[in-house]
C-alpha cells in the first residue's frame, strides 16, 4: 500500500457519511463565525476549511474539563464504589481535522499520562480514537509551530493526515489503523501522484516560510537560557500584568493540571468523585493546610506555566511541552505572549 | 378610644410591609400601608451612569419582577434614543415579559395566596396533603424559568435585552424548545388554575378606577395607551399629567393618586377589567365555566384575574413562538446613535402598570430617572380598601379580622422592595 492516497472533496463527504456510521465523529464545526471541535451527526456540519486553530484544544475529548472518576454509595456502614472508567472504555471515535500542533500535543500528553503510572481515563479514550489530521494551508497570526518543532509538518501521531489541495485532499497514511480505514473505502481513494505529493511539500514549505517570518529563536533549545534567567526582571513585569484568570491553561493543548473533589447527593448517601481542569495561575493552586501558599506572588505563577513548557518539560519527558499553537496568546486579556517571553529570555 | 391594629411585616408578600388600621369608636378612621423596606435610591444611583448600565441596575429593583423592569428600562431608553425595533425583536421582548409574568403569578398564587385558602401558613404545610399539586406547580415554575432563560439568558435578572435589541438571540433549536415548554405549561396549568378559580374569597366590593394598558385584540404588556376606567385614555409620555405622588411620613415608598387625588388600582384585575374581551379563547372558556365576570369590583378577584392570565399568556407565548419560528428574527441588535433625549415607557408588570422615564445627555449619561412601580400606585387603593373592608368585618363581628385583612393585602400581590425607592434631593 502506498503511503499517500487522494480523495476528492465530494468523495470525502461520502467518507464522512461512512465514518459517521462506524464512529462517533468529532470534527471542526462553525457556529456564529467561530470554529470549534464538536461531536457531529451530519457531514454538512463539518468545516474542514478553517484557518488557524480552534479556541479550545482537542485535549477536552481525552481529558474533559469535568470528569466523574467514580460514584459511591454509602449504606449503613458499607460503601460501594462504581468505576466510571467502564463507560469511557470501548467508545469508537474519530477525531477529524486536528492540526499538526494538536497532534503533537496528544503525543506529549501520552508521554505524561501514560508512563510509570497510567491515567486510565485518558488512555482508554486515546485507545479508541482514530486521529485524522489536517495540515494548515493558512496559519493565523498566533501560530509559531515551526519554532517548537511541531509543525507545519506532522511527523507522526496520526492515523491519517489530510492536506487540502483545492478540489481534493492528499491523505498520508500514518498507521495500520489508518490504513484499514483506507482499505475499507478503497472505492473512494486512489493512489497519489508524485505531483500531488510534491504539491503538499510545496504547500507546507510555503506555510512554514510564512510562520518563519516572525523572528523567534529555536524554542526546542531555550532550556539553558531559561535556567539562567529564573530571577530576571521581566518575570516581575509579566506578573504585574497577569490577571491570574487561567485562560491560558484551559486553552493550552498540553496543560493537564486538575483538581479533584467529592460531590455528594443532597442526603449524603451517595455521590461522585469529580476531577476538573485546574490552573497553576490560581492562588489556591498551591495552598496547603495552615493557609500557606507556595506560589503566592503572581510572577511565580506566570513562571510556573512558561517554565513548565520550556524547561520542566525537558526534565520531565525530554522535550519542551509547547507546540506553538498560539492559543494562550490569543486568549490572554493582558496580552502576555509566550513566544515574546521566550525571545526576550534568549536575548537577555 | 382609638385602637390601632397593626399587621406587622406581613408574611408571604415580597418585601416588608406593615398595615396599620386605626379604629376609633368602632369605626375605621384610618388605614396606612407602611413600606418598611430600606429605600434603595435607585433613581439617584442611575444619575450620571452610562445608558448601557441602566438595565442592569434597573432590574435589581425587584427580584420577582426583574424581567419587566429590565425590558421597561430598555424601552424607555430606546424612546429617548429614537430606536425602533423590528417586529420580531418586539415579540421576543414580549416573550421575556411573559416569562416574567408566568414566574411571578405562579409564585404569588401558589406559594403566597393558596395557603390562606387552605388554612395553612406556608406552602410547606400543604405538602403532606397536596404533594402532587405542589410538584406540578414547581414544574410550572421551572418551565416559566426555562422560557425566560432561553430568551433572556438567565431566569432571574435576565441579561440579554439591551437598547437596540438583544445581545444574543436564541437559536432555532432553543425556540423550538421554548415552544414545547410553552405548550407543556399550557397543559399543566389547567388544573391549578381551576383550583384558584374555584376558591371562595371573602365577599367584598368597592368600585375604584382601574388603570392599565389597553389593547386592540390583545392584553398588551409593552405598548398601548393607558386606560383609566370610566375616564378615557392617555399616552405614556403624558403620565405626569395624569398621576401624581404624595409622600407619607410613615412609608418608605411614594404613594400615588390620579390627578384629582383619587386612588386607583393597577394589576391583573385592572388589565382584565379594561381588556376582558381580549382574553385568549382558552382563558375565556375557563372564566365562563366558573362564571367569573369582568369588570369585577372585588379586589380579591385580582387573584382570579392572575390565574386566567396564566392561561392567556401561555397561549400568547405559543402564538409568539409560532410566529418567530415562521419568520425568525434577523439581527439581534440594531444600530443607533447616542444623543440627547428623553423617553418614557409604560408597561404592565405582573403587579400592574410600570413606568420608567429617563433623560439622557449627549454622551448618553442619565440626567433624570423616574420609576413608578405598580405597588406604589396601589397603596392608596389598598388603604381605601382596607378602611372599607375592615369596617365591613367589624360590622359582621368576625373573629379572624387580621387574617382576612392579610388576605386582602395578599390579593394585591404587593411588591414592597420595588416600591421603596423614596428619596428627595435637598
Amino acid at each position: 500500500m502506498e503511503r499517500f492516497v487522494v480523495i476528492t472533496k465530494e468523495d470525502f463527504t461520502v467518507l464522512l457519511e461512512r465514518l459517521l456510521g462506524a464512529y462517533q465523529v468529532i470534527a471542526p464545526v462553525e457556529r456564529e463565525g467561530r470554529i470549534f471541535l464538536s461531536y457531529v451527526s451530519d457531514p454538512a456540519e463539518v468545516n474542514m476549511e478553517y484557518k488557524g486553530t480552534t479556541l479550545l484544544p482537542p485535549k477536552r475529548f481525552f481529558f474533559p474539563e469535568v470528569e466523574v472518576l467514580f460514584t459511591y454509595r454509602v449504606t449503613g456502614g458499607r460503601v460501594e464504589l462504581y468505576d466510571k472508567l467502564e463507560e469511557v472504555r470501548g467508545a469508537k471515535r474519530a477525531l477529524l481535522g486536528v492540526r499538526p500542533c494538536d497532534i503533537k500535543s496528544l503525543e506529549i500528553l501520552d508521554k505524561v499520562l501514560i508512563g510509570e503510572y497510567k491515567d486510565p481515563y485518558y488512555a482508554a479514550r486515546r485507545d479508541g480514537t482514530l486521529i485524522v489530521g489536517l495540515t494548515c494551508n493558512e496559519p493565523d497570526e498566533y501560530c509559531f509551530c515551526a519554532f517548537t518543532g511541531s509543525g507545519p509538518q506532522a511527523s507522526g501521531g496520526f492515523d491519517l493526515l489530510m492536506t487540502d489541495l483545492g478540489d481534493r485532499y492528499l491523505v498520508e497514511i500514518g498507521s495500520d489503523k489508518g490504513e484499514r480505514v483506507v482499505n475499507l473505502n478503497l472505492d473512494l481513494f486512489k493512489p497519489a501522484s508524485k505531483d500531488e505529493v510534491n504539491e503538499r511539500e510545496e504547500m507546507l514549505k510555503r506555510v512554514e516560510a510564512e510562520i518563519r517570518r516572525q523572528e523567534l529563536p529555536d524554542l526546542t533549545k531555550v532550556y539553558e537560557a531559561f535556567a539562567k534567567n529564573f530571577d530576571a526582571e521581566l518575570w516581575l513585569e509579566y506578573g504585574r500584568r497577569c490577571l491570574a484568570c487561567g485562560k491560558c491553561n484551559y486553552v493550552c493543548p498540553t496543560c493537564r493540571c486538575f483538581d479533584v473533589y467529592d460531590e455528594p447527593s443532597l442526603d449524603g448517601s451517595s455521590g461522585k468523585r469529580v476531577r476538573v481542569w485546574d490552573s497553576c495561575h490560581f492562588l489556591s493552586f498551591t495552598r496547603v493546610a495552615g493557609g500557606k501558599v507556595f506560589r503566592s506572588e503572581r510572577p511565580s505563577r506566570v513562571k510556573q506555566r512558561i517554565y513548565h513548557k520550556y524547561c520542566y518539560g525537558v526534565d520531565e519527558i525530554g522535550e519542551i511541552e509547547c507546540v506553538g499553537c498560539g492559543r494562550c496568546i490569543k486568549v490572554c486579556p493582558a496580552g502576555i505572549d509566550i513566544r515574546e517571553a521566550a525571545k526576550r529570555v534568549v536575548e537577555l | 378610644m382609638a385602637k390601632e391594629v397593626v399587621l406587622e411585616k406581613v408574611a408571604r408578600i415580597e418585601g416588608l410591609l406593615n398595615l396599620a388600621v386605626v379604629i376609633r369608636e368602632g369605626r375605621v378612621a384610618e388605614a396606612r400601608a407602611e413600606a418598611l423596606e430600606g429605600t434603595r435610591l435607585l433613581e439617584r444611583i442611575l444619575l450620571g451612569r452610562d445608558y448601557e448600565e441602566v438595565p442592569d441596575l434597573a432590574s435589581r429593583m425587584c427580584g420577582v419582577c426583574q424581567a419587566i423592569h429590565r425590558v421597561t428600562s430598555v424601552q424607555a431608553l430606546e424612546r429617548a434614543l429614537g430606536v425602533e425595533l423590528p417586529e420580531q425583536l418586539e415579540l421576543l421582548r414580549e416573550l421575556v415579559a411573559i416569562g416574567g409574568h408566568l414566574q411571578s403569578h405562579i409564585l404569588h398564587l401558589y406559594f403566597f395566596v393558596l395557603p390562606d385558602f387552605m388554612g395553612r401558613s406556608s406552602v410547606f404545610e400543604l405538602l403532606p396533603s397536596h404533594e402532587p399539586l405542589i410538584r406540578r406547580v414547581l414544574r410550572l415554575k421551572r418551565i416559566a424559568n426555562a422560557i425566560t432563560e432561553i430568551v433572556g439568558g438567565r431566569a432571574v435578572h435576565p441579561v440579554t435585552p439591551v437598547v437596540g435589541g438583544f445581545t444574543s438571540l436564541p437559536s432555532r433549536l432553543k425556540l423550538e424548545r421554548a415552544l414545547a415548554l410553552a405548550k407543556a405549561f399550557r397543559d399543566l396549568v389547567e388544573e391549578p388554575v381551576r383550583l384558584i378559580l374555584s376558591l371562595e374569597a371573602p365577599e367584598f366590593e368597592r368600585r375604584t378606577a382601574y388603570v392599565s394598558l389597553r389593547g386592540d385584540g390583545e392584553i398588551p404588556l409593552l405598548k398601548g395607551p393607558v386606560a383609566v376606567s370610566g375616564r378615557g385614555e392617555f399616552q405614556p409620555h403624558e403620565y405626569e399629567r395624569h398621576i401624581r405622588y404624595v409622600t407619607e411620613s410613615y412609608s418608605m415608598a411614594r404613594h400615588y393618586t390620579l390627578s384629582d387625588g383619587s386612588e386607583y388600582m393597577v394589576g391583573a384585575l385592572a388589565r382584565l377589567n379594561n381588556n376582558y374581551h381580549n382574553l385568549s379563547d382558552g382563558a375565556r372558556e375557563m372564566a365562563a365555566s366558573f362564571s367569573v365576570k369582568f369588570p369585577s369590583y372585588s379586589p380579591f378577584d385580582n387573584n382570579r384575574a392572575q390565574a386566567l392570565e396564566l392561561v392567556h399568556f401561555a397561549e400568547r407565548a405559543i402564538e409568539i413562538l409560532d410566529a418567530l419560528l415562521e419568520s425568525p428574527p434577523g439581527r439581534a441588535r440594531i444600530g443607533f446613535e447616542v444623543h440627547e433625549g428623553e423617553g418614557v415607557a409604560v408597561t404592565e408588570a405582573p403587579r400592574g402598570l410600570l413606568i420608567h422615564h429617563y433623560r439622557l445627555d449627549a454622551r448618553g449619561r442619565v440626567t433624570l430617572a423616574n420609576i413608578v412601580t405598580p405597588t406604589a400606585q396601589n397603596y392608596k387603593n389598598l388603604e381605601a380598601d382596607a378602611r372599607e373592608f375592615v369596617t365591613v368585618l367589624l360590622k359582621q363581628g368576625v373573629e379572624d379580622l387580621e387574617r382576612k385583612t392579610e388576605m386582602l393585602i395578599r390579593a394585591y400581590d404587593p411588591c414592597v422592595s420595588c416600591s421603596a425607592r423614596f428619596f428627595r434631593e435637598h
Partner: protein
Amino acid sequence: MEKPKVGIFSMSSCEGCLVQVLNLEDKILEMMRSVELVDCRLLGVKKSYDRLDIAIVEGAVMSDEEERELREIRERSKILVALGDCACHGGRFLFKDFKFDSVPVDLPRGLKSFRADPLDKYVKVDYYVYGCPIDGDDFLRLFKELLMGKEYRPAPFNVCAECVLKDNECLLDKGIPCLGPITRGGCGAVCPTSGRRCIGCRGLAEDANVDSLIEIFTKRGIEVPEYLWELKKQVGGGRRG
C-alpha cells in the same frame, strides 16, 4: 437525630436571591426534608424556636432596626450565611462607585442617613454566597456542605475561566468593558455567554488584578470607569493572598 433548624431572613434587598432559592424547585422540597425550616417570612413560616443551626440572611442593612434584627439573628445562630451581593457587599459592587454617604436625602420614617451595609460590618459571617442574584446550584452546594459539616469554599477562579470554557469570544476584543477578569467566578459566566459584559456582581476575585484591568481598558481604548479607580484605591490593585 434532630433535624437542623434553619431560618431564612431578609434585610433590605430585591429578594431575587430568595427567588433563586425557590427556583431550585424540586430540590428545595428535598432540601426541606433534611432540615426544619422554622422562620421565613416570605414563605409564611414562623415557628417558635430558641436556637438556629443555620441562619441564611439576604439583603443589606439599611436601618437601625435591621441592624438590631441582624445582631439578634447572629446571637441565636450557630452558622450565619450571607446570601447574595447585598448581604455580602451591601450591593456596592453593583452600585459601583456610588457614594452613599454623600447623598443628601430626606428620608421618611425618621431615618437620618442613608446606608446600605454588608452584614459583616455588624456581625461575623461564616459563609458568603456571592452574586446578584446568587446561583441556585452554588447555594445548593453550600447547603449540602453545611449539612455534612463541610467547609464551603467559593469558586477559586474568576469569571474569565468559566467564560473561556463556554467557548466564548472575549468581549474585551470587541472593546466591551467586561469585568470578568477581576470578578469572582461561579456563575458560569452567564453574562458574557449571553454577549453581555460582566458587571462584577459576585464581587472581587480573591486575587484580582485591578491595575492590570485598568491597563487593558486603556490599551484597548475603553474608557476606564471611575469605579475601577475607586477599587484600585481600596485593594491597591494588587495581590491578596
